[in-house]
C-alpha cells in the first residue's frame, strides 16, 4: 500500500474538525474533573459521616469500573429512565466524572499537605469553615499539585477516542468514518497518531515548565 499525499490533503479538513472537537471535549472534561474533584475531596473530608461515607463509596464505584462502560451507561442506558443527553454532553459528563475521582485523590494529598497550623490559625482568627477553605486551604493546596493535575489532563486527552463509542465526532471517529468510506486506513490512522503525538509532546513541555514553576513554589 502506497502513502497518498493527495488523500491526506483531502481528508485533512475533516480530521481538523475532529481535532477541534477532541480539544473541546478535553477542555470541558478537564473543567468538570477539576471542579468536581475538589468538591469530592472536600466532601470526603466532611466530619459528617452521612456525607463523607456515601461520597467515598461513589468515588470507589466510579474508579472501579471502566470509563467505556460508564459512557455506555450515560449515553445508552440513561435514556431508558428519561434522561437523554446529546453525545458531547454525555461524553463531557462521563470523562469529567471519571477523572474527578482521580483528581479528588490529588486534591486530598494536596489538602493534607497544608499543615494543621493553618487550620488552627484560621480558627483563631474566627474564619468560618467556608472562608477557611477559600482563603487559606485551597490557595495553599492547589499550586503544588498543578503538575499532577496536568498529568491527568494529558491522560484524559489520550482517552478521548473512547468517545467515538458514543457517536461523538472527535478525531478518532472522523478518521474512522473517512477510512470506512474510502477503504484506506493507513493515512487517517497515521494522521490521528501524529496529531496525538504532537499534542502530547507540546503538553510534556508545558508540564515540565509547570513542574519547574510550581514545584519550586511548593517548597
Amino acid at each position, binding site marked *: 500500500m502506497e502513502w497518498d499525499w493527495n488523500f491526506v490533503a483531502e481528508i485533512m479538513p475533516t480530521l481538523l474538525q475532529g481535532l477541534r472537537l477532541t480539544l473541546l471535549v478535553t477542555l470541558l472534561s478537564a473543567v468538570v474533573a477539576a471542579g468536581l474533584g475538589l468538591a469530592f475531596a472536600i466532601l470526603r473530608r466532611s466530619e459528617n459521616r452521612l456525607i463523607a461515607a456515601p461520597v467515598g463509596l461513589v468515588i470507589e464505584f466510579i474508579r472501579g469500573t471502566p470509563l467505556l462502560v460508564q459512557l455506555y451507561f450515560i449515553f445508552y442506558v440513561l435514556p431508558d429512565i428519561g434522561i437523554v443527553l446529546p453525545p458531547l454532553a454525555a461524553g463531557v459528563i462521563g470523562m469529567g466524572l471519571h477523572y474527578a475521582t482521580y483528581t479528588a485523590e490529588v486534591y486530598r494529598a494536596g489538602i493534607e499537605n497544608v499543615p494543621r497550623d493553618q487550620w488552627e490559625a484560621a480558627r483563631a482568627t*474566627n474564619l468560618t469553615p467556608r472562608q477557611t477553605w477559600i*482563603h487559606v486551604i485551597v490557595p*495553599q493546596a492547589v499550586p503544588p499539585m498543578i503538575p499532577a493535575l496536568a498529568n491527568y489532563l494529558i491522560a484524559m486527552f489520550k482517552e478521548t477516542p473512547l468517545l467515538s463509542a458514543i457517536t461523538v465526532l472527535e478525531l478518532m471517529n472522523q478518521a474512522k468514518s473517512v477510512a470506512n468510506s474510502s477503504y484506506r486506513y493507513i493515512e487517517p490512522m497515521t494522521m490521528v497518531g501524529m496529531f496525538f503525538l504532537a499534542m502530547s509532546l507540546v503538553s510534556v513541555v508545558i508540564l515540565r515548565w509547570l513542574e519547574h514553576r510550581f514545584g519550586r513554589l511548593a517548597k
Partner: protein
Amino acid sequence: MTAPIIRIKELDKSFGTLRVLDGLSFDVMPGEKLALIGPSGSGKTTILRILMTLETISGGHIEVCGEQLYHMQRNGREVPADAAHLHHMRRHIGMVFQHFNLFPHKSVLDNITLAPMLTKAEPRARAEARAMELLEMVGLADKARAMPSQLSGGQKQRVAIARALALQPRIMLFDEVTSALDPELVEEVLLVMKRLAAETDMTMLLVTHEMGFAHEFADRVLFFDKGRIVEQGPPDQIFRNPEHERTQTFLRKIIAAGHRV
C-alpha cells in the same frame, strides 16, 4: 466588684486514656495578666488551646465574658455548643502561636486584614489603615508588602501579634511565643508584648518558659503540674518564695538550664 472575664470550673481534658487537665478551676479578672508556668506536659498549653476552641473538653464548664464557651441553652436545657455558638464566642479571644502560623501565601498586610474583612465585614481601606497602625506599633510598618517567607522569626511573630490584635479581642492568649525563636530574636518580641501589656487593658494569658519575662509581665503566676494548679500568687511570691516543693524543684531546674528568673 467586677465579675471575672474567664471562669473555669472543674475542667477535665483527656486525650484517649491520658488525663491532661484534672478538675481544673480558676478565674481571670478583666485586664489581668496571667503567666502559666510548669513542666512540659503539665497541661498549660492545652488550657490556651481549649480557650481558643482548638480542642474539645472532656468535662466541666468555661465561662467567657459572661457566657458559656462550650455549652449553650436550648429550650431551657444546657446542651453542647454548636458551631455557630463557638464562632460567636471566638470573637472575644485572640491567640498567638509558638510557630507563628502566618498565612504564607498572603503578604504581611493581607495576613492582618484578612480576618477583619471577612469576619467583621470591614471595608478594605479601614482594615488596612488599622493594620498599618498595628504594624507601626510592632515596628514593622516598612514590611507591609513583604511576604512572610522574607521575614525573620521575630518579625513573623510580631506580625502574628498584629494579626491577632486586628480583631480587637478582649482576651489574648500567648502560647510559648518565643520558644521557636533564635535567642537574639526573643527580645524584640518580648518588647512588643511588654508595651502591649502596659498600653492596653486587654486580659492576657501567657504560657512561657521565659521566667524573667513572666516575672516582669504577670500580675499573677500559676504553676501547673500534671493538669492541676500546684501553687499560684504574685510573681514575687512564686519566683522568690515558692511554698511547694514541686515549684521549687521546677524553678531550680529552669535556672540550671540557664534561664533568668
